[in-house]
């Protein structure tokens, strides 16, 4: 029992990761690759040197934020599949401000991030409003909003931000998150200050959810709308607020790409997948702020490391997708793992 309470939240993911890697190794063996070489490549690809570490952190940054976005909505009983679209508009807005305004960094950078946040929030507001006022299912609306974001932002890049170009000019350095010293420290990886923002956002999410009356209300509405109304909470307001905040997190994720990684925005021919990966990150992190950070880091490392596998070990990158999927499965099936642990414990005694 004690063991359940204290360690299960950590033990289950760890076991899941190990199992996922184990099965991944078996798949490599079956397909005729050397799993040791494969994993060595994976490791080197993620943590081999300062550069890859930098890139791993960079890749983790937006994942933390989209993970938080989805986790936040989940905590209040809403499923935000729309992080994808919120990322795109957040990216767009932050770059827009990054290009369109001249101001000292101390104003410009926060303003650009804020713009991303607001754009994402706006994109979350629509499904939130529709859900709260008309009871329209947020899942459909957010899916639709993803496509709208994609096409609208492409059009804006093409017709408003540029004269029919595929990407915008670079943002002013006063709006940039990248830092020379960080990059040179990591052999010119694209790691940027965004990671601090992401971790700060996680802290905010934790604080908001666990420590404030806002979080108390949001969770309460998520669990039981009737009782929340009975207790005097404004259910509609909370649904809208939840989607808005969730969208805000995703919007900041977009800003990380716009102000940190790329410094511009390009025409997108498909989704960034940051939003969809965020679902997995959120659930892997069991919708807790700290869990999300860890899960995003795991995801980021695996995905970053994957790039090395074809070159060094000949293993297709997709193996990593399979491994990630397996890990998610094992986490989802924690019940059975827990059962196995219990049995194991009993026999051990």
């Amino acid at each position, binding site marked *: 029992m004690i063991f359940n309470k204290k360690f299960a939240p950590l033990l289950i993911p760890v076991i899941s990761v190990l199992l996922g890697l184990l099965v991944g190794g078996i798949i490599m063996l079956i397909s005729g690759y050397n799993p040791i070489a494969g994993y060595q490549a994976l490791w080197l690809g993620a943590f081999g040197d300062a*550069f890859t570490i930098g890139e791993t952190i*960079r890749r983790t940054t937006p994942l933390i934020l989209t993970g938080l976005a989805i986790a936040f909505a989940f905590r209040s009983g809403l499923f935000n599949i729309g992080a994808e679209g919120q990322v795109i508009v957040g990216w767009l807005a932050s770059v827009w401000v990054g290009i369109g305004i001249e101001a000292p960094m101390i104003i410009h950078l926060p303003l650009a991030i804020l713009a991303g946040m607001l754009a994402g929030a706006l994109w979350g507001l629509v499904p939130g409003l529709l859900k709260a006022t008309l009871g329209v299912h947020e899942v459909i609306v957010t899916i639709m909003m993803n496509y709208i974001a994609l096409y609208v932002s492409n059009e804006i890049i093409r017709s408003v931000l540029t004269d029919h170009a*595929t990407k915008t000019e670079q943002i002013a350095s006063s709006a940039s998150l990248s830092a020379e010293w960080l990059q040179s420290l990591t052999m010119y990886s694209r790691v940027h200050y965004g990671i601090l923002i992401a971790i700060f956002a996680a802290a905010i999410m934790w604080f908001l959810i666990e420590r404030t009356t806002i979080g108390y209300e949001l969770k309460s509405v998520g669990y039981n709308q009737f009782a929340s109304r009975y207790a005097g909470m404004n259910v509609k307001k909370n649904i809208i607020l939840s989607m808005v905040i969730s969208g805000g997190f995703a919007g900041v994720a977009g800003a990380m790409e716009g102000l940190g990684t790329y410094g511009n925005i390009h025409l997108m021919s498909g989704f960034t997948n940051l939003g969809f990966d965020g679902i997995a990150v959120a659930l892997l992190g069991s919708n807790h702020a700290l869990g999300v950070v860890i899960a995003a880091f795991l995801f980021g490392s695996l995905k970053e490391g994957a790039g090395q596998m074809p070159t060094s070990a000949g293993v297709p990158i997709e193996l990593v997708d399979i491994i990630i999927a397996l890990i998610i499965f094992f986490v989802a099936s924690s019940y059975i793992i827990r059962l196995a642990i219990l049995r194991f414990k009993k026999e051990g005694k």
Partner: protein
Amino acid sequence: DETADTDNSNANEGEDSSDFSVAMVTDIGGVDDKSFNQSAWEGISAWGEEHGLSKGNGFDYAQSNAPEDYVPNITRMVREGYSLIYGIGFELKEDIQNLANQNPDVYFGIVDDVVEGDNTVSITFKEHEGSFLVGVAAAMKTETNKLGFVGGIDSPLINKFEAGFIAGAKSINPDIEVDVQYAEHFGDASKGKMIANDMYNSGVDIIYHAAGGTGNGVFNEAKDLKNADPERAIWVIGVDRDQHDEGQIGEHNVTLTSMVKRVDVAVQDVAQLAMDGEFPGGEQLEFGLEENAISVATTNEEAMTEEIINEVKKWEESILNGDIEIPYTREALEEYLDSL
């Protein structure tokens, strides 16, 4: 700017030529995309094999699954000591530029866009020339005087195809109508099919696509129509490489021709130059008909009649002679059409 003080970029000069190695980083799609990633890889492989090298040993590629993969991939190649690294596709422009600035000792090449610096070379193609020629072919072939153009994403690069195609078609017959549609996606076959369905329904009999995977839907629709009525004249014009195979339907083939972009030729040429110590640093090389890097496929002998081929040849001559300037933007196209 860093490039300013890196004029010592030819550190490779002293290197033994046998140490020379080449790598490429794909854009999203991979080396087997049946498109220019594949073509580029074929060029590099050909170059490598010519010099007795093998994959992973003298030449290699890194595949990108998302834009964020470009930098790590390029960096990996830098780290592994490749002498010349290509970024395939305009999407890699910024990243190639940045890494070129950071690594003045390594040669970089970008395909389909322009970067700056003494250690870089930019390889672009005159797609408008090829598009012009397939436009000519289409104009010769059409029975309805209605042509279609399906673009992937509305962007300057794809606009080149569009402008060239329309110019070519109208040069033969100014009354020809060209229906232009963009799918806003390079991988949405269902949209491609829907657009093709709509175009063929409205009387278009030849569609030129510059839309990657979206083009699959165009081929699919054309073949379906052909299957229903083998007598009906329905054509697709392929892009980037000879898409003859995609057009095969039973006895018939709906691929009229393809606008072939020989990335392999360009990539191989530049690799050879670099190896020979003649790296065209800082230059922007534009490959076109003249360099044999743009061509019009004639695999479908039945469809590409003597007459058509001759006409195409005629225009090709004019282009090579510099008699005509092919428009590659919508504005230039307007002017060109006015001048007709």
